C-alpha cells in the first residue's frame, strides 16, 4: 500500500497539473497540425479527380513548352504543367521566380477551381541548374521508369 502523505499529495497534484497541461498542448498541436497539412498532387491525380476542389493543395510538374501566356496589362499568367501523362491549366497573378521557365520543373501551392484550372498563390521553381524540386524529380522518375518498362 502506498501511503498518501502530504508530500505524495503534492506530487500527485503536480503530476495531474502537468498531465493536464501536456494534454491540452497536444490537442492544440494536433488541431493546428491537421488544419495546416497541405497535400501534394500530380497532374495525373488531378485528372483522375483525386484532388479536392477549393482547398489548399500543392501540385507540381514540368511547365509545358509553348504553353506560357502573359497578360498585357496585369501580372496574370497562364500556363500548363504536365507529368508526361496528363496536363493541367494553371493561372497565377504575381511575379514568377527567377528560375521559372518552360520545360522546367515547378511546384505550386494554391486551389483547384471547378473547371480544373489550378489557381496558384505561390510558385516555386528549382533553385539552380542541377536541382529540381524533389516532388517533381520523384514523379518524373516514376513516369520515366514506367516508360522504360513499356
Amino acid at each position, binding site marked *: 500500500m502506498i501511503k498518501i502523505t502530504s508530500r505524495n499529495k503534492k506530487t500527485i497534484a503536480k503530476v495531474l497539473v502537468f498531465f493536464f497541461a501536456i494534454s491540452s498542448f497536444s490537442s492544440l498541436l494536433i488541431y493546428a*497540425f491537421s488544419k*495546416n497539412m*497541405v497535400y*501534394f498532387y500530380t497532374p495525373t491525380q488531378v485528372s483522375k479527380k483525386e484532388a479536392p476542389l477549393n482547398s*489548399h493543395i500543392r501540385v507540381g510538374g514540368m511547365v509545358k513548352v509553348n504553353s506560357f501566356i502573359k497578360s498585357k496589362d496585369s501580372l496574370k499568367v497562364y500556363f500548363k504543367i504536365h507529368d508526361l501523362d496528363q496536363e493541367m491549366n494553371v493561372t497565377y497573378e504575381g511575379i*514568377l521566380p*527567377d528560375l521559372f521557365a518552360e520545360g522546367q520543373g515547378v511546384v505550386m501551392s494554391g486551389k483547384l477551381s471547378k473547371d480544373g484550372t489550378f489557381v496558384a498563390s505561390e510558385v516555386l521553381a528549382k533553385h539552380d541548374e542541377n536541382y529540381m524540386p524533389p516532388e517533381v524529380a520523384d514523379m518524373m522518375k516514376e513516369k520515366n521508369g514506367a516508360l522504360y518498362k513499356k
Partner: protein
Amino acid sequence: MITEIGNLFLSISATLSLCMFSIIFLKKFIDVDLRYAFCKNLSFIVLSLIFLSFSFLVYAFLIDDFSLRYVASNSNISLENIYKFSAVWGAHEGSILLWVLILSLWSACIPLFSGKIPKRIVIDMISIMGVLLLFFLVFILFSSNPFDRIFPIPLNGKDLNPLLQDPGLIIHPPLLYIGYVGTSVPFVFAVAVLIDGHIETEWISWLRKWVISSWVFLTIGISLGSWWAYHELGWGGWWFWDPVENASFMPWLAITALLHSLIVSEKRGIFISWSILLSILTFSLSLLGTFLVRSGILVSVHAFANDPERGLYILIFLSLIIGSSLILYFSRSSKLIFYREYSVTSKEFILLINNLFLTITTFAILLGTLYPLITSSLDLGKISVGAPYFNFIFSALMLPVVFLMAPAVYSNWSKTNYNSLSKKLGKILFYSLVIAYVWMNFYYKSDIFIVYLGISLALFTIISSTIKMFQIFDNTFEKNYFKTLLSIPSSIIANSLAHIGIGVLIIGVTVSTYYSSQKEIIMVKGSEILIKDTKIKFVDVEGKLSSNYTSQMGIFDAYKNDKYVISFFPEKRTYNIQKNVMTEAAIDSRLMRDIYIALGENIADDSWVVRIYYKPFIQLLWYGVGLMILGGFFGIFSRTNSVNNN
C-alpha cells in the same frame, strides 16, 4: 600533392581520434595524469592536423586547382578571391570539413579552459569528443572527401552558386557551425558526468559559460542567415519555416531552455538530471539538423547533395549516439536527482514553466519538420506543413514565455511574496498596456488583438528589464564609483539585455508583419507610385558589367513630401557560367522603416514588373538580436561568484 597530404592528415587524425576514444577504456591501467596529458596533447595534434588539411583546401581554392573535383564544381577563375575563400564551405564536402575543424577546436578548448573540472572528467569528455571526431573524419574520408581528384582536369570550374555570392554568406556558415558544434561540449559533459555519477555546483557554472558561448554563436549564425534571406532572396521575408531553418532553430530553442535550467541547477542544486537530459537532446537536435541539411532530402538552398548513402550514414550515427546516451541517462541519472521544496511563486517554478514551454515548442517544430519527411519516405503521400502551422503554434506557445520573463527576473528563489511582486509588476504591466494601446490606435489606427498582445508584452519585458538593470546601477553607483562598477553582477546585465532584446525583436516582428505594405506592379519608365508616405519614381534601367555576371540595374528615386530622399539601384543579374538569373533587391533601411525594391521582368520596351515593400520598424528585429548577443557576451564574461540579487 595537396590531395595526398590532405588525405594523409585526415587519416592520421582519424587514427588519433580513435586513440583519444580508447583512453576511456584504460582507466584502470594508466595513471590519471598520464591519461590527461595524453588526451590533451592528442586533442591539440588533431586540431593542428585538421587545420592544416583545411588550409590545403583553402589554398587549392585560391590557386584554382581544378584537379580537385570539389574545387572544380564550386569555384571559377573569375570568382572574386573572397568568394573563392568562402566557396570552401559553399557545398557539402567542405562544410563537413569545416564542421570537423570546429569540433576539433572545441575539443582542444576543453583542456585549455577546464577551470575547476577534475582531470578524470576532462579525460572522459575529450575521449567522447574523440568518437565524434572519428565518426565525422571517417564520413569525410569515405563518402564526402573534398580532396577527391577529377579526370580529365577541367580548364575552368563550374562556379559557386550565385545565391551564395553574398557577404553575409561568407561568415554565416562558420558562425552557425561554431554554435551548432558547440552543443557538443554540454553533450560530452553530460555523458562524462553520467559515467562518473557525481556532479558539483562549480562544474555547472563552468558548463553554463560554454552553453552561453554556443548560444551566442548559434544566435549570430541564425540571424545572419535570416539577414541574408531578407537581402538576397528578393522576397522581403526573413524567416520561412523552411526545414533547414527549423533544423538550426530547434537546437537554439533547446539550448535556450538548457541555459535557463542550468541557472536553477547552479543556484539551487535541482533540475540537474533534467539539465543533463537537455544537454543530450540539444546535441541530438544539432546532429539531426546536420542530417536533415546534408542528406539531401530537403528542398532548399542548403541541400547540396542528393546522396541517400550519406544521409543513411549520418542517420545510423545519429541513432547510435542518441540511443546509447539515452540508455546511459536512464540507467544512471537517478543518482543526479535532488529534491528541494519550492512554491508556485518561486523563481524555480517560473523557470520550470519556461523550460516546459520551450521544450514543447521544440517538439512542435520537430513534428512539423519531420512529419512530411516520414510520410513521404513511408509512401503515405506527399504532405507539407505550411508556415501558418508554425506561426500559430510558435506564437501561442511563446506568449506565456514572454509574459513570464519579467516575473522570472523579479521573483525570488524558493518563495516570493506574491503581493509585493504583483505590486511591482502590476504598474509596469498597466503602463505597457496603455502605451501599446495608444501607439496602435493613434499611430496605426488599428486594433488587431494579437498585435496589441505582442506589443504590450514586449513593452512589459523591455520596461521591467530596464528598470531592473538600472536599479543595480543606482545601488552600486552611490558608493565607490570604480570599485562598484567592476562589481556589478554582469549576469543581471546579461539577462536584462537579452530580455530587452527579445522585447525589441518582438515589436519589430509584429509591427513589420502586420503593418507593412506591398506592391507588385508594372511600371513604365518615368512613372511614379505612392507607398505609405513615400513616392517612388522609376527613372531608368541601365546595363552593368562585372567580372562574373552582367546585370540590368534599375534606377528609382524616392521622394517624401516632394523632397528627394534617396535613390535605389535594384539589379537583375545573369551569372555568366551557370546562366542563373538573380534578383538583387535594393533596400533603404531607417529606424522607422525599410523600403525594399526588387526588379522583376521586362514586359515591354519601357515597362518592368516591380516589387516594392514598405516595412515599418523591421530594423528593430536586427537591433533586438544585437542586444541578445550583447547580453550573451556579458553572460560569458560574468563572474559566477557575483552577488546574487536575492
